[in-house]
């Protein structure tokens, strides 16, 4: 098994990428995720695995370099934080439209605008509902620990190539900056040219040989009927993803009368709050979506009959709460508790919210 280390979430992203056989990284510095590229540059993977690491002139360039690499069948990733992800929105919709696999790590900070460099979860809508134009979805993974930062790199590439779709790891400044014990994944070699041919040879732009038609990585189709057919194909893919790739975790839910729904760092803090509330005899559980797209709608629905009230807890003004309400379909009340602008709630604050918004709800 892999070795144990004490590391920052951002550093682990870099190390996990090298160890899972990533071919290339293109990025641009932005707080609070700059350690990703710094760690890669210190590690010099081009001398060991042959992985390419390049500092681009902007996030716009990074995401388009990713497009170039992804369309040639390579495992490529970038990392950024909220304002940088906004700049990548154009590239992300092109990648989704051309059905190209890649991983984008978003270490979210508070907004809007230049906002703050402190952690937030205020980019849920951007990550899960689009960000760029057109009917498309990213597969969104939400790590709640440094260990999951490690695990989701490999999982991210697996899903990206399985569905030929961009994957976003939606982290935040807390998970990116905090240090924890992490068990690194076993090292995997980069794909050989033969393996790339086998895995992506039916679509990748790796040189047209006489035995096949030319490959074109494009999202353009000027014929409306044909574009509609393509959109239906995309939607069918998202449906398959919805059916097969939902991931979530439940904590103390079996006898729960009240439920907190929270993801990422918000779930990490909420877990402590649930423990504190349980010590006071309050029957509250925690439901943690791990995939935000696809969203664990059915799993939440399954819990509804035993529950009185649900509380969505987020470091935002209330974004994921909309998906919780869609899942609950008005059957029970869904309330919200959050902090914004880079402020982080304490477990005690969440316990207070449990008491006032759940138990004491009038």
């Amino acid at each position, binding site marked *: 098994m892999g070795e144990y280390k004490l590391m920052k979430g951002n550093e682990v992203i870099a190390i996990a990428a090298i160890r899972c056989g990533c071919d290339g990284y293109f990025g641009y510095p932005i707080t609070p995720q700059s350690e990703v590229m710094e760690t890669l540059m210190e590690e010099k993977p081009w001398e060991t695995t042959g992985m390419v690491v390049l500092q*681009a002139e902007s996030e716009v360039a990074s995401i388009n370099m*990713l497009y170039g*690499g992804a369309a040639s069948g390579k495992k490529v990733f970038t990392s950024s934080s909220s304002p940088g992800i906004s700049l990548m929105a154009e590239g992300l919709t092109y990648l989704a439209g051309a059905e190209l696999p890649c991983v984008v790590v978003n270490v979210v900070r508070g907004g809007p605008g230049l906002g703050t460099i402190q952690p937030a979860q205020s980019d849920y809508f951007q990550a899960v509902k689009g960000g760029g134009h057109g009917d498309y979805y990213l597969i969104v993974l939400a790590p709640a620990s440094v260990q999951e930062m490690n695990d989701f790199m490999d999982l991210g590439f697996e899903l990206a190539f399985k569905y030929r779709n961009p994957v976003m790891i939606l982290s935040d400044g807390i998970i990116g900056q905090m240090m924890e014990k992490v068990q690194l994944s076993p090292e995997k070699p980069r794909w050989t040219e033969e393996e790339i041919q086998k895995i992506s040879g039916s679509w990748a*732009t790796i040189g047209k040989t006489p035995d096949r038609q030319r490959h074109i*990585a494009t999202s353009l189709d000027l014929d409306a009927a044909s574009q509609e057919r393509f959109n239906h194909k995309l939607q069918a893919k998202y449906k398959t993803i919805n059916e097969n790739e939902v991931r979530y975790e439940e904590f103390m839910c079996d006898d729960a009368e009240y439920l907190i729904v929270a993801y990422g760092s918000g779930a990490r803090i909420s877990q402590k709050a649930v423990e504190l509330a349980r010590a006071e005899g309050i029957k509250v559980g925690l439901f943690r979506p791990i995939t935000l797209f696809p969203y664990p709608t059915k799993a939440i629905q399954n819990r509804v009959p035993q529950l009185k009230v649900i509380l969505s807890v987020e470091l935002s003004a209330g974004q994921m709460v909309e998906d919780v309400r869609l899942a609950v379909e008005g059957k029970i009340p869904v309330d919200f508790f959050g902090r914004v602008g880079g402020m982080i709630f304490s477990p005690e604050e969440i316990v207070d919210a449990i008491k006032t918004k759940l138990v004491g709800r009038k």
Partner: protein
Amino acid sequence: MMEIKDMIKPENLVYEKTKVLTNNIMHYCPGCSHGTIHKLIAQVIDEMGIQDKTVGVSPVGCAVLAYNYIDIDWQQAAHGRAPALATGIKRLNPDKYVFTYQGDGDLASIGTAEIMHACSRGENIVVIFVNNAIYGMTGGQMAPTTLVGQVTATTPYGRNTELNGHPLRITELLAQLKGTCYVTRQSVQNPAGVRKTKRAIQKAFENSMMKKGLSFVEVVGTCNSGWKLTPTDANKWMEEHMFPEYPLGDIKDE
């Protein structure tokens, strides 16, 4: 008297369409320079025997559909981003010949950051820059390279420097960057120009495998639809008005 069918024999063949050009009918307007430039690129790829080692990046603009005509693997870029895609391809596939094909709006307006830094980094790629001083596909609006006084859909009274600034000679600008090894400006309005442009494209492709940096070939072209001139008048207008602002020849060759 010899019958025509007796003359059609391989040994009598003096010219043929390169097999790297597809049989698709081009969507370009009659008189447009794109068709000739596409043919030259296809010929160079064919003659160098690199069809299976070449990846092209098409722009947004009239040439967005270049992938329908040159029979190689292609990637289609967002507006202006072709040099970033090409960087990603070439860095991860150094054994491939990688080129971008971009117009003046794509390269010299919305894509200035990407072309500037690809040149500055000395990416070992080829850039074919077709400058016809107008936005063709969107219907003839002002481009950064539009001449002073030139009438376009967004400069209906002619380009006015006070309102619209000056024509951008981006090729001269890029030649100053240390990462470029070969920067040239050509045109395809006559047989001599076609031959010179083909030589320039071939040299650029050869350079890209020598780790010398970025090779940049500007081709001054016509847009007779946008200029509202017949193909022959467009050629004449180009010689009289475009060439003084955009003089032909090598700007840098290292």
